[in-house]
């Protein structure tokens, strides 16, 4: 390879120049990918496809990015299990990618890097599918999970041996294991529409039973989630929908007096958000009666008489979600009834969150945010105050050594583990936790132990004691580590 291109003068990020580069270079990479496929050099093919994916992402060409990702996943699967690729399938994947690139590179949809709008015309063609028993996929995913655990132990052992060739092989094995898991998890994804399609019947029955008129619609059903997440969402969604109809939407005569159309609007929609999917259940009904809920909570000793009046949305949700609270008579008068506690419990068990917004006379909206997949998640293992913790990699911006003289809050102290104070005898390491737009949060730990793929087991009892624990995971040595709930920790530090 030469010395690279001559260094250009500082220039504005020019949309036309990038569009031309994208067009020329992605076609060049496609040629390279086809040549590699012909030579059965799947590594080279993967790299070429991956490069196209990166460029398409930078250009905001969602269709080409998705097609490249699909091709990459196929290749990842093949590379992981070592099977001889089917030339037909590889050719098909590259054909799909090429047509997506052609559409993206046509002048009509050319746009600046990181462009906001994405041409709808770039959606990839329908991929070919095979039907597979879900139990087989589960079994494969279990094996892949076990494999990830073995890989962790292998990496530890290799680190002790200190042989470069072995380290390289272990590093390759970990990459392939991750690709295998990613491909399998993707194979388990099903569109939310499978669940949404059953909701109109729930709404019809609830409307008939309560004498309401309801106009129901769903949106965003093409968002895909893990089969397990989909199954687990059915119950809370049903609870929240029945509530919206029974207690949110007013009877037709009451709506007429309020100047609203006779039919109440109930909407369920799904949106992709960072790390998951948000499903909202919204009605245009009477809203939750804050005063009634507050009075009932005070009467039952759930809130002190000095509690804020009116309750804000978060405090309202906290009361409604108290087990048993909403099943009492108050459900009928409060405008929000049965099952909020059950819905919250299910969502939390998935590692998700529930939020409530309500306005008197205007309606109520519940938002469930859940991860796309369950199964394994990569986590950084740290020791803080002598205790192991796992921190999901999705919430870690990085690790570093402390700067000279720098003092950062110690994780052990933040978690309030007074029984295990931070070990300050050594400089320790600094963990940068991701707080989204609010920038990274630097916390001190005794040391960073490494990275593992962890199976996160939700432990509701733990959650009650440690509000910053998303669950627990079992380490290689059989020791149990808490999985840190970084958003909860960040919220507690700076609400």
């Amino acid at each position: 390879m030469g010395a690279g291109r001559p260094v250009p003068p500082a220039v504005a990020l020019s949309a036309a120049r990038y569009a031309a580069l994208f067009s020329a270079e992605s076609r060049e990479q496609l040629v390279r990918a086809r040549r590699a496929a012909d030579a059965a050099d799947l590594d080279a093919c993967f790299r070429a496809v991956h490069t196209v994916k990166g460029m398409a992402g930078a250009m905001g060409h969602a269709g080409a990015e998705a097609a490249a990702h699909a091709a990459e996943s196929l290749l990842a699967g093949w590379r992981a299990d070592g099977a001889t690729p089917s030339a037909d399938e590889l050719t098909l994947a590259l054909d799909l990618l090429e047509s997506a690139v052609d559409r993206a590179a046509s002048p009509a949809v050319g746009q600046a890097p990181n462009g906001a709008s994405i041409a709808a015309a770039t959606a990839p063609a329908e991929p070919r599918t095979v039907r597979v028993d879900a139990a087989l996929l589960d079994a494969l995913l279990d094996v892949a999970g076990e494999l990830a655990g073995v890989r962790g132990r292998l990496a530890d052992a290799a680190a002790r041996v200190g042989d470069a060739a072995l380290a390289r092989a272990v590093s390759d094995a970990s990459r392939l294991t991750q690709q295998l898991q990613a491909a399998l998890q993707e194979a388990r994804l099903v569109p939310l529409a499978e669940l949404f399609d059953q909701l109109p019947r729930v709404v019809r029955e609830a409307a008939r039973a309560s004498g309401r008129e309801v106009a129901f619609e769903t949106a965003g059903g093409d968002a895909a989630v893990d089969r397990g997440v989909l199954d687990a969402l059915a119950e809370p969604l049903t609870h929240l929908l029945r509530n919206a109809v029974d207690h949110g939407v007013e009877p037709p005569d009451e709506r007429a007096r309020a100047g609203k159309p006779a039919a109440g609007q109930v909407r369920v929609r799904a949106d992709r958000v960072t790390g998951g999917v948000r499903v909202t259940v919204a009605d245009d009904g009477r809203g939750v009666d804050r005063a009634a809920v507050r009075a009932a909570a005070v009467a039952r000793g759930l809130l002190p008489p000095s509690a804020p009046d009116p309750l804000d949305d978060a405090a309202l949700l906290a009361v409604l979600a108290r087990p048993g609270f909403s099943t009492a008579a108050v459900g009928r008068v409060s405008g929000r009834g049965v099952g909020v506690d059950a819905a919250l419990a299910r969502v939390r068990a998935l590692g998700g969150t529930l939020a409530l917004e309500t306005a008197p006379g205007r309606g109520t909206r519940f938002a469930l945010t859940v991860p796309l997949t369950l199964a394994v998640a990569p986590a950084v293992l740290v020791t803080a105050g002598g205790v192991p913790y796992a921190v999901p990699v999705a919430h870690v911006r990085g690790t570093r050594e402390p700067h000279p003289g720098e003092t950062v809050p110690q994780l052990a102290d933040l978690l309030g583990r007074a029984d295990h104070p931070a070990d300050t005898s050594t400089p320790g390491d600094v963990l940068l936790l991701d707080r989204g737009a609010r920038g990274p949060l630097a916390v001190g730990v005794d040391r960073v132990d490494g990275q593992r793929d962890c199976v996160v087991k939700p432990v509701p009892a733990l959650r009650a004691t440690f509000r910053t624990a998303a669950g627990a995971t079992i380490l290689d040595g059989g020791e149990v580590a808490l999985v840190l709930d970084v958003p909860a920790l960040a919220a507690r530090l700076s609400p």
Partner: protein
Amino acid sequence: MPRTALICDDALFMRTMVGDILQQAGYTVVGEATTGAEAVARYRELRPDFVTMDIVMPDMGGIDAVRAIRAEDPGARVVMCSAMGQQGLVVEAIQAGAREFVVKPFQPSRVLEAVERVLA
């Protein structure tokens, strides 16, 4: 004196983009590399103030290149550039000696923040 950068990525598109972002912020791009092996050789020759390193490259990937560069120069400052879906590799990269990482598609502000932090 402007700080010097070595940009390592197999895609001209990405090298151009990172180069534009860095030069507009006043950094000098002294060289580019398109493979991991080339990155190691160019680093040895140019000794730049910092390196931006793609993870997936032919002929030695970015993580191995970081390891090799840090073996020669423990003070090397490397910003890792990873694509979406490679978060699992990020920590491996950091353990190999990368000081910071940014995720593609690049936000110029994220790239510059990461560079400022490795130079700090």
